[in-house]
């Protein structure tokens, strides 16, 4: 056994982030750790990597008990970690990032040529395509992740911890990553994979350990289990299958007619003659590989970018190229695709984040003076209802995990009770329990007779929730399906630019 964690407990005050957790890793094994947000996966790995100290319990490496006080010791012991949020220096080249703090030197001088050569060799050895002289910040996310993995390899790691590596990747990049991981195992490395995507676990892991509320609820061999069993162990109950009850569709709430948008920088057409409607009591899904005009469509509807042609009608009024506030007042709520960029003020606390678009409502202010008591009551209630895990509502938003922040934003936008909700990647990075909850909320909104436009790169989400599905490819609508007629195969072909005839 290469590595063993025995009865690890980590307490923060009275709260047990990890409770008697045991975990082992064999050589050339991929061992996945799954669990919901806040189940204690990352805490466990931070202790293994020396960023936190266990309250009790022991860590054995190659059978020897080790005291890992800081990351430098972990690195010396051959443990490397690829963080969920990349630890890169964007203006540096890829090679400079990989060799950082272990730079080859010629006297006092930084031997950049040798660095580039070594990185190129390393990349070739492990079958990862990169150009060492490219600027890291300009590289796509998938490449940046390879840089992170190479960095760990350059430091001589035998055990690689990957913290939710696929959360930020496109489906194609995920495939490439899984291929690379297999390659690494073949070359003698061992991998700990933290994730909550069960299909990836089933595809690549040898064993899987499930955590719930800081405790291990099972360590299973992937061959002998299935996603249903894993999700039961993760959530602690059967997942509900949310049906879409058929209900009467009402009036058109959102109507987009022939809109076009071109890039100011390159003059490239970003949206090309897009027409679609969303009616009351309907969820309309937009499927597509990200970067095919979905972001631009969101910006056109929400007023974040002007369209060159066409019209956007919301709730009976022409909202083409109006201001965000006008459109929101007309009945838009919006779960943005990038929660950090558009969705939240990281430094502000949960109260301010929840009130961002609601503070002016009569329920929360009188003559310009905020009703703080009322506001705090409302925020505390929402946080409880949407199960946002936080120590207090005065915590600043940046200290929430990504999934919990997403729940907070979903709470803010769904509870507005507007006639139209634009939900862009509403469950990105959230665990299956929260995903189930957000899906329930979207369906409930639809059943109440509101209109929902759902934009998601997760096909399963689109297929499960949408009354109608549009497929976008290169800024155009290339297909439309009813709930009954939509299937993963049909959508995938159109998403890749093919056609079904």
């Amino acid at each position, binding site marked *: 056994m290469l590595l063993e964690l025995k009865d690890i407990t980590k307490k923060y005050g009275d709260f047990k982030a990890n409770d008697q957790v045991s975990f082992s890793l064999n050589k050339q094994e991929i061992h996945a750790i799954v669990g919901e947000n806040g189940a204690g996966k990352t805490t466990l790995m931070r202790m293994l990597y020396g960023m936190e100290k266990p309250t009790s319990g022991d860590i054995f490496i190659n059978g020897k008990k080790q005291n890992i006080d800081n*990351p*430098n010791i972990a690195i010396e012991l051959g443990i490397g970690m690829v963080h969920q949020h990349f*630890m890169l220096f964007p*203006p*540096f080249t890829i090679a400079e990032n990989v060799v950082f*703090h272990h730079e080859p030197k010629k006297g*006092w*001088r*930084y031997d950049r040529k040798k660095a580039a050569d070594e990185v190129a060799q390393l990349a070739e050895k492990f079958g990862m395509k990169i150009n060492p002289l490219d600027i890291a910040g300009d590289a796509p996310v998938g490449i940046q992740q390879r840089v992170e993995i190479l960095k760990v390899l350059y430091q001589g790691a035998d055990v690689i911890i990957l913290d939710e590596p696929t959360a930020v990747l496109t489906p194609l990049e995920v495939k490439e990553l899984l291929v690379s991981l297999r390659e690494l195992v073949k070359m003698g490395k061992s991998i700990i994979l933290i994730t909550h995507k069960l299909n990836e676990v089933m595809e690549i892991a040898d064993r899987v350990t499930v955590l719930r509320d800081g405790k291990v609820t099972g360590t299973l061999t992937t061959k002998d289990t299935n996603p249903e069993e894993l999700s039961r162990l993760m959530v602690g109950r059967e997942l509900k299958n949310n049906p879409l009850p058929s209900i009467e569709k009402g009036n058109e709430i959102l109507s987009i007619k022939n809109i076009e948008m071109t890039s100011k920088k390159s003059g490239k057409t970003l949206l090309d003659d897009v027409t679609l409607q969303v009616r009351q009591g309907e969820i309309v899904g937009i499927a597509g590989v990200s970067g095919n005009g979905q972001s631009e469509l969101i910006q056109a509807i929400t007023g974040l970018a002007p369209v060159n042609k066409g019209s956007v009608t919301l709730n009976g009024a022409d909202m083409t190229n109006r201001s965000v506030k006008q459109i929101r007042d007309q009945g838009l709520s919006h779960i943005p695709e990038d929660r950090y960029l558009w969705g939240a003020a990281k*430094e502000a606390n949960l109260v301010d984040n929840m009130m961002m678009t609601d503070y002016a409502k009569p329920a929360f202010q009188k003559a310009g003076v905020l009703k703080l008591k009322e506001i705090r009551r409302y925020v505390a209630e929402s946080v409880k209802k949407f199960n946002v895990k936080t120590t207090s509502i005065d915590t600043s938003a940046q200290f929430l995990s990504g999934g919990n922040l997403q729940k907070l934003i979903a709470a803010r936008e769904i509870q507005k009770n507007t006639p139209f909700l634009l939900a862009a990647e509403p469950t990105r990075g959230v665990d299956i329990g929260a995903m189930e909850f957000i899906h329930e909320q979207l369906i409930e909104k639809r059943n109440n007779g509101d209109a929902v436009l759902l934009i998601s790169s997760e096909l399963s989400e689109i297929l499960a929730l949408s009354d109608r599905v549009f497929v976008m490819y290169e800024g155009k609508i290339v297909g439309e399906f009813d709930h009954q007629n939509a299937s993963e195969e049909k959508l995938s072909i159109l998403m890749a630019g093919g056609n079904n005839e």
Partner: protein
Amino acid sequence: MESLFDLSLINSTLRMMAPLLLAGLGGAICSRVGVFNVGLDGLMLMGAFLGVAANAYTHNVWLAILIAVIGTTIFSALYAYMTINLQANMIVTGIAINFLSIGITTFALRTIFDVQGAYYNNEMQGLPTWEIPVIDQIPLLGNLLSGQSPIVYLGILCTIVMYFFFKKSVAGSHFDAVGINPIAAKSQGIKVKRIQYQAVLISGVLCALAGAQLSLGQVTMFSENMTAGRGFIALVATMLGQSNPIGVFLSSGLFGFTEAISIRLQGLNVPTNFTLMLPYVITILAMFIFKDKTQLSALKNSAGSSR
């Protein structure tokens, strides 16, 4: 016009720019590690005062400069401690440092030397001017470059050293890394705080030299608030030069040149008020034209540190 532009103008430009250059380089090394050092002016003033004060007692200009450097570096450690350890807002702390040094130097001037406004003493030894042996003999270049105070040459030397430090050395790359992404640097085992301290202390040394050039190089006296905002112009030189040593050299050269020109213009019956305004007008114009990304990220850090 002939008396306005001649070769000795370049000579006086070099003299005028030296304090701006040194302080600007200090600002640059701070901004490269993500510290927005607004206290340059205060550090310079401290250096100028300590230089004169030590000179008055020791009558030795070299010892005076040494004392100025040591004292100002200790003073800059105060700034480092407040911004790096206590995470105080960099801009507010920098402004506090500036006012503190005005207060301390004015107070010390009155209590130690019992004068108000300015202190001057015949026994004080000013900085010598150095004739560079070989260059001195070259007809044109000799006039241009030779006959400056050692601190002027030191400024040029510092520019070159710092250029190679950032361009070629591993340590320089670590300095940059700390400025770009301190969390990532820390995760790779870099001692972020130590590097930020080093940068601030180096800026203390450079500002002390800049101040000494003001009080012992151009004149041999100290007057209250004698930097007259030069630390801020140096800060602009840092921004304008994109925190790059060569860039800082060129931009402080521009400011030194306008300062030299404005002195010439006074001789040509141009109103003094107008000529005194010139360097500052150029500074504002320059700020419109150039923007500095590294400085912006240092500013962002400083906003974060206000938490």
